Structures are given as C-alpha cells and as structure tokens.
C-alpha cells in the first residue's frame, strides 16, 4: 500500500517534469523575438497547467469527500451533539459552495486571460457598487452564520436541563480518574494537597488527618542537627524534629544513630536554612551546620546530588503541611463542606460508565499540567487546568450497543488490525462495519505519553448503571 502511494507520488512528479520539459522544447523551437523574460509558449503551457490543476483539485475534493466519509465519526451520540452536527452541515455547505465558486473563477480566469502579446488589459481600477456588494453580501451571510453559531454555543454551555448526575474527571500524566457524586449528588471538596493514595484528593476530615500523619511518618527523619558525634564508625546526630518544630512550634529533641557506612551512602539533599535561621545543610533527611560541610564531604557524602531539587522538595513539603493544617482549621468552621466527599465514588479504571439519557455535568480538574478531555463521539471537549475547575454538560442519547448499531446503519467502518504480540507486525487488517466505541482521549500536549492517554466509555441503561454504581465502594 505505502509503496503504491509513493509510486503514485513519483508518477505525479514525473508528469510535472515531463510537462515542463515539453514547455522547454516548445520554447527552444520558438525563440521569442521580444525581450520578454518569459516566452508566450511557456505562459500558454502553464496556463493550461493552471486549468488542469483546478479541475484535478475539484475532482480530488469531491472524491475525498465521498470516499473518506465512511471513516469519519458517526453522527453525534449526545443531545447537543445533534445541533453541532447540523451547524457543521450548514457551515460545510456554505464553505464548499464558496470554495467551488471562488476557486472556479480563479482557475478559470487564470487560464482564460493568459498573456497574449499586443493585447491590452481592461482598465478597471475600481467599481464602488461591485465592492459594496461583495462587502455587504458576505457580511450578511456571516452575521446569519455567527448568530446561529452563537445561539448553539450558548445552549451548549449554559444548559437549562436539570443535572441528573455529577461526574468528575481528574487528569494527570498520563491517565484519567473518575469520581461520581454519590448519594448526596454533590462532589465533595478536594485538594491537590491530598493527592497520593487518595487519587482525586477528596478532602474529608479523615483524609486530611490521615495525610498529615503520613507527612509526619515520611519526615520524622527531617531533623535539625544540633550536635554530631563520631565514635567507632557510629555517627550520632542529635537535634529537633523538623515536622513538629516547623509546623506546631513544639520542640521535640531526638537522636539518631547511624553506622558509618549508612552515613557514607547518604545523599546530600539540600542546603537550607534551619528553624533557628542559621545556614544548614540537609542531608537525606538530616540537617547539619554548613560549617561542617567540608568535613562531611570528606566523610564521603555524595557531592553530585541535586541540591536545588531537594531544597524545593522540603519547601513543598512544609507548604503542604501548612495547607493541610489550614484545611483542618477550615473544617472546624464549615464541616458540611468537607462531609460531601464521604459518599463519593472514585473509579480508577480504564472504563467510565455513564447512564443513557441523563444530563451529566462533568467537572474537570488536573493534577499536573494542562490536558484536554476530548469525547469525539459526543462532540464534547474541555481543557483540564491545574488550579481551576472546568465544566461541560452533555446528555448521552445512545447506549454503546445502540451507537454501534447506528454506526453500522450509517455505513461507518473501522479497521480491525491484528498484530503479532511479540514483533508488533501486522498479521491481518480487515475493514469492518461499525465503530470502535466511545472513548475519552487527551487532546492537549501533556508530555511524552500524550499519545496514549485514554479511557473507554460505556454508556448503559439507567438500571444497569444504578446497580453498577451501588456495587462500588464509597470513599469512606
């Protein structure tokens, strides 16, 4: 197949070369008597080429529109999507008519009025009526189109239907996590401070406390060293617990003893500032006086570690603990806000289930960079932006099976490719009627595996959805 196409391209190039060579022969035969830099015969040949190109362009446009139609998306599977499709159809009719008329004139004039020596062009510098006409007519047509487009957009983005279900989709490099609102139909508070085991960062009281405890466990070894003693290959560090000191203001003296070899294998984590304001060196969780730096390097500490990286890690850690504590304080003021999350259902699977006929409000968040949640079959898309909740509401109108049946009825096809599991070589590739089904994909470049960030969507009948959801585990 590929080879055929390359051959085709070469043939087309060959035809072009042959055409020019022929023009050259013609010119060589008829040395132009005038001093024109381009001979009449060259112009004639290319004028003909111009016309032929126009005809081929039109033919190719029509052929492609007809031949490729079966590969295009099936008609929309959502309520608003039908309006989008209709707007698209009307816009395409308008575009294609203008395309054929203006390109037709361009290619026809370009051929018809090619240069003939001695001919004088028609003096026609302007015509106010004509110019007024072709300003006003496009203006009127466009205003109509834009009004239609704006009202469709307005209906899509400000839907009046009652929301039946709230679903949240959280993106990260390189996957999606889904959260359903649960029995109270409200998505609970969430924060990036809680990501980790808590996949979408739901902020209930317990979740916050649990996370704070985790922080403590992770970081009890971050201590500010006030004393260091080296005896018999054992190194004893005495200091204060960083976590408690920085966050709560309490001072917890503690002592850690390490073997020399463990100490040697330690990695310098960061230069930093201790709680008392003096310059410190933080080493794999330990802080020591910078004055001792040389001695420590002599002890064999890794000099190549990335100091900046971990200095910022420590900053991030501290900021997050403060953030969590603020949230706890906030919980005391407004507990209901945080309780909404308890019955939420988090699904971390590569399938999302949606009930047919429900108006679903999707809320999007992103953990790391901007992604875009693109549902091509529903004509829906919204960027997911860190630090911002974005929304898109739509109503799926066909179950996955119904959609498949419709795609078959519309004559759509997909290619079933079977590959050898080991070599990846294509064993067979068969065109089949139908569609590969609903999908959610990432449509904003987000890093190396951007091209493989997908979730399958299953639209099912209401009762099937309800029983499925009832079987899922709630957050608490």
């Amino acid at each position, binding site marked *: 197949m590929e080879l055929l196409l390359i051959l085709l391209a070469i043939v087309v190039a060959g035809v072009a070369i042959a055409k020019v060579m022929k023009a050259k022969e013609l010119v060589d035969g008829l040395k132009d008597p005038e001093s024109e830099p381009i001979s009449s015969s060259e112009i004639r040949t290319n004028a003909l080429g111009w016309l032929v190109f126009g005809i081929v362009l039109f033919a190719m446009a029509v052929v492609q529109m007809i031949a490729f139609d079966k590969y*295009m998306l099936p008609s929309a599977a959502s309520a608003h999507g039908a309006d989008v499709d209709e707007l698209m159809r009307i816009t395409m009719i308008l575009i294609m008519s203008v395309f054929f008329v203006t390109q037709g004139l361009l290619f026809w004039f370009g051929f018809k009025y090619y240069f003939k020596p001695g001919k004088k*062009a028609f*003096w026609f510098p302007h015509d106010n009526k004509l110019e007024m006409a072709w300003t006003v007519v496009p203006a009127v047509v466009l205003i109509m189109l834009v009004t239609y487009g704006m009202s469709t957009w307005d209906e899509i983005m400000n839907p009046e239907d009652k929301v039946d279900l709230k679903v949240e989709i959280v993106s990260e490099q390189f996957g999606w996590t889904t959260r359903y609102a649960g029995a109270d139909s409200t998505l609970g508070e969430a924060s990036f401070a809680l990501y980790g085991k808590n996949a979408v960062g739901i902020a209930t009281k317990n979740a916050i406390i649990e996370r704070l405890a985790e922080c403590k466990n992770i970081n009890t070894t971050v201590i500010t060293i006030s004393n260091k003693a080296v005896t018999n290959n054992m190194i004893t560090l005495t200091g204060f617990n960083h976590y408690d000191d920085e966050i709560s203001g309490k001072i917890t003296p503690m002592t850690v003893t390490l073997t020399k070899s463990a100490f040697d294998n330690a990695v310098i984590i960061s230069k930093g500032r201790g709680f008392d304001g003096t310059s410190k060196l933080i080493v794999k969780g330990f802080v020591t006086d910078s004055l001792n730096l040389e001695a420590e390097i002599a002890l064999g500490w890794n000099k190549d570690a990335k100091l900046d990286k971990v200095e910022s890690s420590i900053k991030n850690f501290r900021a997050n603990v403060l953030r969590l504590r603020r949230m706890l304080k906030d919980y005391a003021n407004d507990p209901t806000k945080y309780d909404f999350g308890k019955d939420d259902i988090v699904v971390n699977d590569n399938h999302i289930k949606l009930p047919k006929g429900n108006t679903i409000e999707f809320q999007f968040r992103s953990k790391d*960079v901007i992604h875009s949640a693109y549902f091509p079959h529903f004509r829906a898309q919204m960027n997911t*932006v860190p630090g911002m909740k974005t929304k898109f509401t739509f109503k799926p109108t066909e179950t996955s099976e119904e959609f498949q049946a419709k795609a078959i009825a519309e004559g759509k096809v997909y290619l079933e490719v079977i590959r050898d599991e080991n070599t990846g070589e294509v064993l067979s590739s068969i065109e089949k009627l139908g569609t590969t089904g609903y*999908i959610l994909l990432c449509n904003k470049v987000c890093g190396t595996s951007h091209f493989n960030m997908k979730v399958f969507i299953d639209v099912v009948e209401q009762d099937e959805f309800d029983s499925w959801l009832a079987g899922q585990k709630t957050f608490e």
Partner: protein
Amino acid sequence: MGGHHHETFISKYIFSMDHKMIGKQFLITAIFMAVLGMAMSILFRIQLAWPGEGFAFLNFFLGDKWAPEGVLDPNMYLALVTIHGTIIVFFVLTGGLSGTFSNLLIPYQIGARDMASGFMNMVSFWLFFVSAVIMVYSVFIESGAASGGWTVYPPLSALPQAMDGSGLGMTLWLVSMSIFIASSLIGSLNYIVTVINLRTKGMTMVRLPLTIWCFLITAVLGVLSFPVLLSAALLLMFDRMLGTSFYLDSIFIGGEPLEATGGSPILYEHLFWFLGHPEVYIILLPALGLISEIISTNSRKPIFGYRAMILSVLAIAFLSFIVWGHHMFMTGMSPFLGTVFTFTTLLIAIPSAVKVFNYLATIWKGNLRLTPGMLFALGMVSLFISGGLTGLVLGDSALDINVHDTYFVVAHFHIVMGAGAIFGMFAGVYHWFPRMYGKMMISKLGYLHFWITFIGVYGVFFPMHFVGLAGVPRRYYSNLDFEMFNDVQFINVIITGFAILSALGQFVFIFNFFYSVFKGKKSVQNPWKSNTLEWTAPVERIHGNWPGELPTVYRWPYDYSKPGYEEDYVLQTVPLKDGEHDGH
C-alpha cells in the same frame, strides 16, 4: 550621498548597514532555517506514517539516543514538532519574510536612499541571527529541545520535572525568543519610521504600493503585540528560575504538591495569544502585500479597489487584536467570552472576502503573464481561499468543540498561513530576484518548483482535514495506540508521501536560487515592465540606490494598460498629462 564608499568585505557582506544587503542576509538565513524546519517535518511525518518502523537513516542522523533502532524517540518527536513550528512561524515567516522584503522594498519603493537607521537595521539582523543560532543549538543539547508545542503552555513548559524538553531546552527557547523579539521590535520601529518620514517627493500615502502599506501595518502590529509575548516569556522564565508562580497553581507532580500556588496557566494563554493571533497577520499581511503587487504587475491591470484593499488590511489588522480568544474556547474561560470572540473572529472573514474578490476582479480580463512569481501569487490566493474558509469552522466556538486541536486545525493553518505565506514569499523571491541580484532566475526550474510545491501542498493538507474530522488529535507521536484511528492511517501515508515529494521539490528552488545568484542571465533594468520606483534604480545595486537626485513621484503605482498610453505600463515617475486623473 549616492556615491560609492570604500567598503571592506566585512562592512559590505557581514556588518552591512545597507538595506539591500541586510534584506539578502535575512533571506539566506531564512532559507537555511526553512530547510531545517522542513527536514524536521519530514522526520516526524515518517514517524506518523509508519509508527514504530525502524529506518536505518534515522538512526544514522539522530543516533541511538533519539532514534534507537531507527525509530524516532517520542521525546524527540515532540521536540521536532515544537522546533519545526517555532522555526517556521518566527524565523522563516516573521523574520525571514518581513526582514527580507521590508528591507529590500521599503527604501526602494518609497524612493529613499536607505532605512531611517542603517545601524538599527544591522542590529536587527544580527539579533535575529543570534536567536536563530540559539534555537537551532537547543535541538542538539542532551536533554532535548523544548517539547511542549510551539505555544509552550505552562505548567508543562514551566516544570522541568514534567518532561525532558522542559529543562535546558525550554530555557534556551525562551532566551532565543526574547532575543528574537528584540530584533523584531527594532526592525519594526525602523520600518515604521522609514515609511512615515522618508517618502520621496510626491509619494503620498495613497500613492504607496500595497506592499508598503502591508509592511507598515505589519510593523505596527509587531510593535503592539510582540512586547506582550516578551512579557509572557519573561514571566515564564521567572516561574522557572526565580520561584514565582505567575502561571502555577495547585500542582502535584513527581509525587509532591508544589509550594507555588496562586497563579493561572490561562494567564499565559491570554498573553501568548494576544501576540499569537496578530502574529498570524504579521505573517500573512506582508505576503498579501507582495502578491498584490505581483498580481497587478503581471495581470497588466491596476489592482482592483486600491483603497478597499488598504481599508481591508487596516480592518484585518484592527480585528486581529480582538480575536485571540478563539484559540482558547476550550480552556474553560467564560462561555460568554466565547460568544464575543466567535463574533469578532467571523468578522475577519469580511475584509478577507473583499481581498479575495478584489484579486479575482484584478485578474478578470487581464493579460496574465504567468511567470513563476505570478503562479505562486495566484497559488497563494487559492490557498488563502481554501484555508480561510475552514476558519469559519474553527472560529465558530460551537463547531470548535469537536475539531479543536485536531488535525483539522493543523490543515487549516498550514494552508492559510504556512503554505500561503510561503507561496507569497516564493512569489516575492522570483519577482524581485532581478532587483536583489541583477540576474534572472531560470524560469523553467521556477515552473517545475511551482508545480511540485502546489501539488505537494494540496496533497499534504487537503486530506489532512479528514484526519482531523475523524477526531485525530495533533501532536500524537503515534495514532495507532487508539484503535479508532487505524482506519485513517492510510491517509497519513498519503500525506507523508506528498510531504516528501514537496520537500524534494524545494531543492529545485535552492539550486535555481544559488545558481542564478552566480551564473544567472543578467537582468535588464525593468524586466517585468513594472511601475514602481525600485525598477527605476540602476541594475547595479549602488549605495544610496539612485545616482544623483531621488526620483519624483507623480502618480499611483498601478497605471497598467491605462487608456491613452501606448505602452501597457506607466512609471510612477512619469508626470500626469494635462487633464489626466491620478489612477484610482
């Protein structure tokens, strides 16, 4: 003035302050950058057509790190896509196009000895050159070039931990762009001052060729919009290096929540597209100016509706500042803003339509001398129509939902501002080559180049619309990780075939260009029988352009086939006859 100064090799060819030489320096740098940009596109097109297949030559060129076993590495793929876009948009179509033709034509066509400041002009080129070197260098560093797409949206571009290309490569990108912006601003200010102040006697604003109008308006657009991109780039640098958080909020990456909060990545998008959209017209308007002149001259007919053309350019320029939001319909900004930007965006279609109709009226009943330059100019009109029309889909927010960031967009902007502007640039090079070098290019090779390129462009970008309509997102390393895209994969192969064909075709041009510079047939003073002032200057490109007095202008530049004249052209320096009206 007007005499020959003593010139050394360095002052003549390297640190030249002569507008003609600086124009050529821009052109040759742009040709070099265009070849690089094109080669990059071929590399990633090969990956898209045959994902995962090994090609020994890829391994040979890129080595084991970037093309292990001849398969392009995904990070390198994204780096190539990003740098291809950056190079073509900024270094070829902004710096290269305006730099070449504004420098060459502004003093010549307004009857000036040189630009207002030759020194600033020289600084502008050398800053451009330095920024180009840094940009190209960034491709060769170990962690790879910037890889977030040419728009480099944060947080992806702000966080080195988000991807390899957001490390040193991104820093170099920002440094290079900042220098580029300085170059562009210095150049633009110079163009504006020159056009306003240095017009020769009789050269009123309504006797300026449309090229100059377009260069002037382009320069104004650049001066008003590039500083905004500079601010966006500087804030991004601060976020990367100084720990600020203009664009960062609530980010959890590499297993830890970041300290930086309170910013907004959408702010960057607003700042970027406030330049980004006028940038489209910074690219397009000079090309439209060039083809206006070329089409009129080679139709042997006045440009139809001279004043309407100026007004439509002004309207496009004005509107281009209030449409940036159509790049951001899907960012989650207020839907009401979406409505506003849809409205302003579709308004641009009106002056654009006027321009197209005026070109059609210009060639109607003309005497079309289809030189290679003229064919490229007509080709640009064709591309402007094809690419402009799909803008009606993308500019309409409701339709944009489903084609946003798909290959439909890629096809649209490559036709209208990529290939379109490149065609304008080629038209300009073929047409003004005699003015630049005093030689003629070989017309047969010119025709060959045109046909390969024209077939190639439509062969690449027309089918690409269908890939987009099938829902394939742009910047995917491979489309085959989604089963649903298997069926349109054969279109990708067709596209790559035509891309390789048209890339090879460009070597015809490069050969023709350099061969003609050294061995071309000597040109006569006014080979195209054109009216404008540059053709009244001697073929030998002398310092100061005209020996003796500067020419005086008596009429507009489009008196082609004017009744009452024997010849089918009347130079702008020919006084009006008794009772004759000035042109339009």
